[in-house]
């Protein structure tokens, strides 16, 4: 095996582009590994760790592109180099979605803001260490900020949010997956109708799931204000969530507010509760992964995302349609064996674990890195968040890129003692354009190996009819592959739990 490093000086590229290049070069004959990164200290240390030589890495700066190669034989470098040049010439835009769309492009954020004084939101998706600089530039120019980037230092987040509040500007993020502001979807969003229910909180997937359930129930969303994954942590103290709630309280279109979040730190939860009490409009709260809860001081704490959606619809006066929970009542088959949960984000992992627990299934949220050939968690049932740091470092989000999820699905699903694969499929803008076929073909492959012993695939779909992937078609593909499909993580987990419990009951009777 030959290690080789190519250095391209002074050419900065974003991570999506770099990952595309890595994949293209890695697919060349004779290339066993290709890692393409910018020469930051962290990336250099990473390459050093995996055995590349220090001399070649020493001179690289964060402005230089490093191409680290493992080659099966000598004499391949020039071919790789040729392909690389070809790819670089082909354009450095990471996406096909917006290329050629005629959207104006400016050489830098300050220049764009100067040219477009009426642009009111700056959306930022660059590497974390650089994101704060851009966010400050945006705030200083009087623009609201949607900050998708993660790995932003905590102190930076606090300073940005304090400044945002002072200036009356939203700082949605860092690590903000979803917002819908005045009808405009930012980040990962579903094409839900506008209406009278306002959403806020740090959980992006939670907001997506809620917005879809509200839409399926005949309601609409006035605003959805994502506040970033750490907003309700003790140090940040809900700086943006409280500002978002105030804005919703004053927004004439919003009749009911829903807060969806992972459980906040104790003191933050207390302060937030005091805040929620003072709001003039009905408030519904779902703290993901929390045991069943009820109203307190007029604040409606709910037991699941589904319940929060139902209650919000009722409080907003939306005429009720079929309650989604019914779908979980379809008769489950009796299933034996292990439950493996594979999720594209922490919110639904947490929520599913709690729903399973509530139905008598103890499923462990594993924090060990799973990969084919590695040890399994000791617990009988376990859930994996493939959107967690362990899986996303240097890779795209699992909602966009299925590789990690499908690899784990194939491996864990092919174990004869696996009884249920519980998964989530999040659709909408920003997500994978057609995810169901990947799951279906993996399922077919498992069935070819295990036949009737293949596990049951239970899958939730977060999406609405207008989403680009067409949820009905996605559902059809999954059902064709034998999957049981549900419109929410709550119903999917409930169904999975009942299937497993029937097995337990069956064992008792035997």
């Amino acid at each position, binding site marked *: 095996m030959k290690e080789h490093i190519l250095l391209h000086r002074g050419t900065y590229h*974003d*991570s*999506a582009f770099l990952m595309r290049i890595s994949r293209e070069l890695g697919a060349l004959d004779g290339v066993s590994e290709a890692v393409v990164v910018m020469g*930051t200290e962290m990336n250099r240390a990473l390459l050093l760790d995996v055995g590349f030589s220090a001399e070649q890495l020493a001179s690289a700066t*964060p*402005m230089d592109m490093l191409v680290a190669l493992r080659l099966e034989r000598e004499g391949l470098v020039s071919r790789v180099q040729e392909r690389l040049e070809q790819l670089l010439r082909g354009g450095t835009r*990471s996406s096909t*979605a*917006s*290329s050629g769309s005629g*959207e*104006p*492009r*400016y050489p*830098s954020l300050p*220049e764009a803001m100067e040219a*477009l004084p009426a*642009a*009111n*939101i*700056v*959306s*930022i*998706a*660059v*590497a974390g260490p*650089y994101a704060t*600089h*851009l966010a*400050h530039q945006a*705030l*200083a120019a009087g623009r*609201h900020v949607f900050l*998708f*980037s993660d790995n932003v230092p905590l102190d930076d987040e*606090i*300073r940005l949010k304090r*400044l945002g509040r002072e*200036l009356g500007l*939203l700082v949605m993020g860092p690590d903000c997956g979803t917002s*819908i*502001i*005045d*009808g*405009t*979807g*930012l*980040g990962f969003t579903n*094409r839900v*109708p*506008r*209406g*009278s229910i306002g959403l806020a909180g740090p959980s992006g997937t939670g907001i997506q799931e809620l917005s879809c359930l509200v839409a399926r129930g005949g309601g609409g969303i006035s*605003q959805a204000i994502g506040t970033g994954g750490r907003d309700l942590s003790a140090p940040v103290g809900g700086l943006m969530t409280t500002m978002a709630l105030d804005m*919703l309280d004053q927004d004439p*279109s919003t009749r009911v507010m829903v807060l969806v979040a992972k459980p906040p730190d104790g003191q933050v939860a207390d302060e937030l509760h005091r805040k929620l009490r003072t709001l003039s409009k009905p408030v519904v709260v779902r703290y993901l992964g929390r045991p069943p809860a009820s109203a307190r001081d007029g604040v409606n704490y709910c037991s699941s995302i589904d319940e929060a959606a139902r209650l919000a619809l009722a409080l907003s006066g939306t005429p009720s349609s079929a309650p989604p929970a019914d779908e979980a009542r379809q008769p489950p088959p009796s299933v034996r064996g292990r439950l493996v949960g594979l999720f594209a984000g922490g919110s639904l992992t947490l929520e599913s674990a709690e729903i399973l627990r509530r139905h008598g299934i103890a499923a462990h949220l594993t924090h060990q890195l799973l990969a084919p050939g590695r040890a399994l968690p000791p617990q009988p049932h376990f859930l994996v968040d493939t959107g967690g740091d362990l899986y996303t470092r240097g890779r795209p989000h699992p909602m*966009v890129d299925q590789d990690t999820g499908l690899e784990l699905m194939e491996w864990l699903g092919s174990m004869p003692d696996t009884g249920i694969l519980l998964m989530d499929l999040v659709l909408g*803008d*920003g997500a994978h354009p057609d995810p169901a076929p990947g799951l279906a073909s993996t399922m077919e492959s498992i069935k070819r190996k295990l036949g009737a012993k293949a596990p049951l695939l239970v899958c939730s779909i977060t999406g609405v009819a207008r989403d*680009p992937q067409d949820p009905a078609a996605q559902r059809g593909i999954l059902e064709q592959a034998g999957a049981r499909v549900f419109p929410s993580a709550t119903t999917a987990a409930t169904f999975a739990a009942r299937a497993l419990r029937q097995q337990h009951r069956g064992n008792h009777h035997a």
Partner: protein
Amino acid sequence: MHSQRNTRILPGTPWIIHVGMDDMTAGVAASGAALAHADFQPPGGGDPRRVRMLTDLAEAPVAERVDSANKIALERFQASQPHLVGVGTALDTIPGMEEGLFLHAGPPIGWERMSGPLRGAVIGGALLEGLASTPTQAEALASSGAIRFQPCHAHQAVGPMAGLVTPSMPVWIVEDHGGHNQGKRSFCTLNEGLGKVLRYGAFSSEVLERLRFMETTLAPALAAALEESGPVDLKLLMAQALQMGDEGHNRNRAGTSLLIRELAPHLAALPLAREDLSRSLAFMHANDHFFLNLSMPMAKCMLMAAEDVPLSSMLTVMCRNGTDFGVQVASMPGRWFTGPAMQVRGLYFPGFSASDANPDIGDSAIMETSGIGGFAMAAAPAIVQFVGGTVADALATTRRMARITLGRNSTWAIPSLDFLGTPTGIDLLRVESLNLLPAINTGIAHREPGVGQVGAGLVSPPWECFHQALSAFHQHVMETIPHHAEPV
């Protein structure tokens, strides 16, 4: 579906500027909102310390203060009205000039680190001043410390290439007739012409002979003519030259012609010997760069008006001594930030190549600092081969430089850009956060003393001076706005 009309929580219609991964904008596009993209480069070259400093400086309250300071600095620069008012000797006119003191181009430097052309000029200066009678004596004197060296910039003066000013040399006197620095003066020697000349380190008898002619014949004639003509508005002359195809650094043909036109009637009216008059006019005519030694003190005069504005990140000096490149910033007047002088990329005269070239030298980068030269490349299609070959390149260079400047010059317009003003007021913070260095047009000196100019081309400053300046500016701002230093 709801048909109710929704209110907005943000003023205005949604209009998004997206920075970074393009894939993240599908939702914006689907909802039909206005969308624009902004490209991104890691600020400060991605160095974590510089990213931190630039982030601190981008925070709203700080950025606002820096912006207003930069407005003041730029306004003072624009309001300056440099006029040519006379010719005098360095000793009599330059503040702080003394016997035994030699001024040179660029940031401070001692004899031991001086490059060939600067050493040659010092030798020539010592011979001219009668301090030494042979080059060897002159060298011994220079290295002994008997001759003291200071930058021209420390004395309101500028000099092209070696930029040597000795006490007896005649100098142009430029005076500010407007704005903040009314009455303040700047200085520069008279341009000697091309070929073997002192500013390229030549010190042969022919060089010294020419300098004596300038001192005894040309300078008194020009001084007398100026007394007759009264002050000459240099900014206006420069504006005309830019419209006649000069960029004010590597091409000064139009400016030189305009100056001769301005002075000739007054020279002709002087009680001069006909051959002295003829020789003087021929001397100016033979030297396309004669005007450079006037546009340089003009630029210096204007940039001095922008000095000493606290919190301003505008550059007021860029210069080189053949060994180091130095810059100064408006808020920290007199402080040098330096890095190694770079090699010039350019075209060489027949018989010379890059191996003959001295690193970048001269105070003439004051032209770019004031927004001409490389920044006004679009005005000078005649010399585009120096910057890459095509007229399109020249236009692109001027547009690119507009990205790192604070504004547009109110007097100097470029016809090929629909009379848009030249990009003016280089902003240290834009240079650092956009990773974009100023483009400087320049001549190339031979690295041996006395050979002269061997080519011309384009050069960039070294990053080191901007990195140093950023650290110092960050500290200056944090000290000036103390509340910012409080922890969150």
